[in-house]
C-alpha cells in the first residue's frame, strides 16, 4: 500500500543557465484533484513535460504506485497510466469521436471494429456523464466538447492519472461549472487529476491539494482546506523579502490618456478586457497588477494600437485616437510602448542593434530618404542611444540576438523614450532581468514620470510594481477591480483584488 499515486522525487531540469525545475518534489494522492499553481515561467509546464516524457529530467525519480518508472515518451507515460490534455487539442477534426479515440491505440488487431469501440465508449461516456455521441465529427463539436473528447480518450486508453493543462482557458464561463462537476465525478471514481493553472479561484473550487511553484521551485504544498485565495495569491506572486523603495509623486498633472469603456476580445472572441475605463494623468505611474492572463496584454496592446477596441474610446488630451494606427500613435501622438515579450514583439533578433534602435521609425527622416536607408545616420543615432544608456555590446552592427536581456531591454527603452513620448506603456519591463538592470529600468521610468510622462506600468511582479507606482489598479478577468493610491496598496489588499475578491467598501467610490 503506497500513500501516493504519483511521486515526483527531487526533479531538476536546466535549460542552459536557467534552472526550470530546481529539486521539485510533488506527491499526489490517489483519487484526488491536485492543483499546480504558479505564474508563467514558474516551471509548471517543464515539470509536466517531464512527467509526460517530452523532456528528460537532469536528476530525480518518478514513481507511480510506488514503482519507479522511466518515461522517455508520451507512449511510456500512457503505459504508466499518465495521460495529458494539452491546451491545444491533439484531435483530427475531420474524424468522428470514436475514430479519434481509437487512433494510436495498441492491439487494435487487423480488423477495426468501430461499432464495438463506439459501444464501449458510449458506456464509458454514460458512466461519467460525458454526454458525447461517439459518431459526431470532432470538428463540429464545441471547444468544451472537444475537451471532453480528449479526456474520454485518455480514460479509454486506461490512463488513471490525468494531467490537465490550463483546462478552463478554452472554456466560456458557463462551461466551467459543468466541467468541474465532471472532474469531481472522475475523482470520485478513483481517478487522479493534476490541474495546472494560475487561476486561484479555480484551485479553491475544485482542488483537494495545491502545490505552489515559483522560479522553478516548490514554494509550498498545502490542502485547500487550510488555504484561501488571498494566501495563495501571496504565495504565488510574493517574494520573501518585500523591499519597498517609494518615490511617490505628489503632484500629478491633468489627464493625459483616457480609456472610456474599452472592451477588447481575445483570439476566441471572449472578452479579454471588459468595459475598462482608466484616467492616466501626466506625471504619474499607474501600476496595473493582476495574475498573468487577466487582460494585461490586451490593455497594453489596445493603447499601443496593436489590437482594435471592440467598443469604447481612447482619448489623448481630449483627442479621439481610437482609430489611429500603431505608427501614428507613436509618431504623432507620442504613445511609446515597451512590449512584454522582447523577443516576440519588441525586437527583430536577426537584425543589427542599429536597425533595432530605429525599428519603429526607420522609414522616416533622418534615417531614410527616398526609400533608401542612410546607414551613417542610423549607426550614429544607435551609437548615441547606446552610449547614453550604457548598452554593453561590441558594435551597433552586431545582431541584437547576441546582447544580454538587460542590454536588449535598454535598447528598447532607449528607442521608445527617444521621441520624448507623452504616454509610456511598459509591460513586464523587469521580466528576466538581473537586479542591476531592474534598478536601471525602474529609475528610468521614474525619470520619465518626473519629466511629465504619463506612465502605465503593467507587471505581475507585485513588489516591482509597488516600487514605482503612484496608484495601483488590478485587473481580474478583464475587469478593472479597483484603483488604490500607492500608500493603500498593501500586498494583502492587492492580492485579494488579484484573486477577484471585490473590495467591500468600493461601493461609495
Amino acid at each position: 500500500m503506497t500513500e501516493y499515486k504519483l511521486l515526483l522525487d527531487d526533479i531538476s531540469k536546466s535549460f542552459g543557465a536557467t534552472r526550470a525545475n530546481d529539486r521539485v518534489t510533488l506527491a499526489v494522492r490517489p483519487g484526488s484533484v491536485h492543483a499546480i499553481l504558479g505564474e508563467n515561467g514558474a516551471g509548471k509546464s517543464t515539470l509536466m513535460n517531464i512527467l509526460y516524457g517530452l523532456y528528460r529530467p537532469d536528476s530525480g525519480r518518478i514513481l507511480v504506485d510506488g514503482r519507479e518508472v522511466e518515461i522517455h515518451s508520451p507512449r511510456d507515460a500512457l503505459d504508466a497510466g499518465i495521460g495529458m490534455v494539452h491546451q491545444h487539442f491533439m484531435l483530427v477534426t475531420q474524424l468522428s469521436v470514436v475514430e479519434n479515440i481509437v487512433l494510436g491505440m495498441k492491439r487494435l488487431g487487423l480488423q477495426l471494429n468501430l461499432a464495438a469501440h463506439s459501444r464501449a465508449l458510449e458506456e464509458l461516456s454514460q458512466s461519467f456523464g460525458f454526454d458525447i455521441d461517439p459518431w459526431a465529427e470532432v470538428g463540429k463539436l464545441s471547444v468544451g466538447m472537444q475537451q471532453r473528447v480528449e479526456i474520454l480518450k485518455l480514460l479509454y486508453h486506461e490512463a488513471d492519472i490525468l494531467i490537465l493543462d490550463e483546462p478552463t482557458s478554452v472554456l466560456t464561463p458557463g462551461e466551467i461549472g459543468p466541467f468541474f462537476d465532471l472532474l469531481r465525478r472522475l475523482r470520485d471514481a478513483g481517478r487522479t487529476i493534476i490541474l495546472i493553472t494560475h487561476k486561484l479561484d479555480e484551485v479553491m473550487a475544485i482542488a483537494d491539494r495545491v502545490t505552489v511553484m515559483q522560479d522553478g521551485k516548490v514554494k509550498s504544498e498545502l490542502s485547500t482546506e487550510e488555504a484561501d485565495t488571498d494566501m495563495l495569491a501571496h504565495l504565488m506572486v510574493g517574494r520573501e523579502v518585500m523591499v519597498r523603495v517609494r518615490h511617490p509623486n505628489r503632484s500629478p498633472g491633468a489627464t493625459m490618456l483616457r480609456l472610456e469603456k474599452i472592451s477588447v476580445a481575445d483570439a476566441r472572441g471572449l472578452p479579454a478586457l471588459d468595459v475598462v475605463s482608466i484616467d492616466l494623468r501626466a506625471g504619474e505611474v499607474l501600476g496595473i497588477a493582476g495574475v498573468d492572463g487577466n487582460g494585461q496584454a490586451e490593455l497594453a496592446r489596445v493603447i499601443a494600437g496593436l489590437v482594435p477596441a471592440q467598443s469604447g474610446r481612447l482619448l489623448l488630451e481630449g483627442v479621439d485616437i481610437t482609430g489611429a494606427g500603431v505608427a501614428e500613435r507613436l509618431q504623432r501622438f507620442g504613445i511609446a510602448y515597451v512590449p512584454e515579450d522582447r523577443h516576440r514583439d519588441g525586437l527583430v533578433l536577426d537584425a543589427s542593434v542599429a536597425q533595432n534602435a530605429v525599428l519603429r521609425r526607420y522609414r522616416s527622416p533622418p534615417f531614410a530618404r527616398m526609400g533608401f536607408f542612410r546607414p551613417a545616420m542610423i549607426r550614429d543615432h544607435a551609437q548615441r542611444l547606446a552610449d547614453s544608456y550604457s548598452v554593453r555590446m561590441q558594435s551597433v552592427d552586431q545582431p541584437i540576438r547576441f546582447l544580454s536581456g538587460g542590454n536588449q531591454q535598454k535598447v528598447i527603452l532607449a528607442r521608445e523614450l527617444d521621441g520624448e513620448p507623452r504616454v509610456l506603456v511598459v509591460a513586464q519591463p523587469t521580466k528576466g532581468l538581473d537586479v542591476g538592470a531592474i534598478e536601471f529600468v525602474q529609475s528610468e521610468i521614474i525619470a520619465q514620470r518626473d519629466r511629465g510622462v504619463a506612465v502605465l506600468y503593467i507587471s505581475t511582479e507585485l513588489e516591482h510594481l509597488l516600487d514605482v507606482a503612484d496608484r495601483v489598479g488590478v485587473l481580474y478577468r478583464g475587469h478593472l477591480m479597483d484603483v488604490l493610491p500607492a500608500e493603500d496598496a498593501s500586498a494583502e489588499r492587492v492580492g485579494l483584488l488579484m484573486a477577484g475578491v471585490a473590495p467591500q467598501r468600493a461601493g461609495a467610490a
Partner: protein
Amino acid sequence: MTRFLSLVFLLRGLLAVFAALLIGSVLILAAGADPLTAYGTLFQGAFLDYWGFATTLQIMSPLLLAGLAVVLPLRAGLFNIGAEGQIYIGALFATVIALYVPGLPGPLHILLCSFAGALGGALWALIPALLKAYRRINEIIVTLLLNFVALHFVSFMVGGPMMEPGAPYPYSPEIPESLFLPHLLPRTDAHAGVLVGVVIALVMFAVFHRGTFGFSLDTVARNPDAARYAGISVERHIIVAFLVAGAIAGLAGTFEVLGHRYRLFHAFSQGYGYDGIVVAFLAGLSPLLAIVSALFLAGLRAGASIMQRAVGIETTVIEAIQGLVILFVAVSLAFRYRATEVGRALRRRQEVERALDAESEERES
C-alpha cells in the same frame, strides 16, 4: 578542413551542376557521342559564338525576369510558383495594347505595352496575394493552378477572338514593326529585354541591401509581430511583394512578344516561369547572382540545339541533362538547407503563416 567544407557548401550549386553534367555525359556516351566534344560544342556555341550567344541572351531575358519574380516574394517568405501564368497574362495584355491601340509613336507605344504587360502580370499575382493575406489560402497552390488557367485562357484568346484570320495554328496577328524591341546584337534575336532584367536585378539588389522596403519585407518574414509593432502592415507587404513580382513576370511575357515572337502564340512560354524557380534557387535568392544563374541556364538551352546539330545527339538527351541539372540543384539545396538562405526563407514562410493565423483569429473574433 572546415574552410574547405564551407567552400564546398558555398559552391554546392556549381557542384550540383557539375555532377549533373557528369551524369549527363553517361547519357551522351550511351547516345554514341564523345561527352567532352559534346559539352565543348555546347559551351562554345552558347557563349563564344556570335549567333549562339545572341540566342543565349534572348532566352536569358524571360529566365532572369521570371527568376526575379520568384526571388522577391521569397524575401517576405512567400513562394511564387505562378511566374508562368503571370508571363502569359502579361503577354496577353501587352499584345492587346500592341494590336488594338493604334496611332501612337513607337517608343511611347512600347512603353504603354510594357506597362500593360506589367499590369497584367501584377493583376494575375494579386489573386493569390489577396487570398493569402486575407484568407490564408496557400499561395503555392493558388499560383500553381492559376498557371494553367492563364495558359488555357491565352490559348482560347489566340485561338478565337484574337486569332490571325486564316492562320494554321492558334496565334494572333503580328504586332506593328514600330513596336519591335531594339536588338542588342545586330541581325540576331538578342533583344533589349535582358537589359531591363539586369537593371531590375540591380535595383532589387540595392533595395534589398539599403532600401527601407527591403528591410520591411525582411522584418515581415523575420518577425511578423515585431513588424506590426514597428507599424508595418504584414498584409500590405504580402500584396505589394506579389504585385511587383507579378509585374516583373508580366514584363517577361511582354518582351517575349515585343522582342522575339512579334505575335502572341498559344503555349509560347515553354515553362520559363518554372525555370525562374530554378534560376532563383541556383542563385541562392540573390538578385545579383540571379543574373549569373539565368545566363548559365539560358546558355545550357541555347547550346543544346547547337550541340544537337554539331554532334548529332537527340534533343531528348539534352532535355534529360537539363532535367538532371534542376534535380541536382534541388538536391544540393536540401543538403543542410536549414543553414542556407533558402532554409531561412522556408522558415520565414512558416512565420508569416503563423502571424496570419493569429491575425485572422483576432479578426474573426
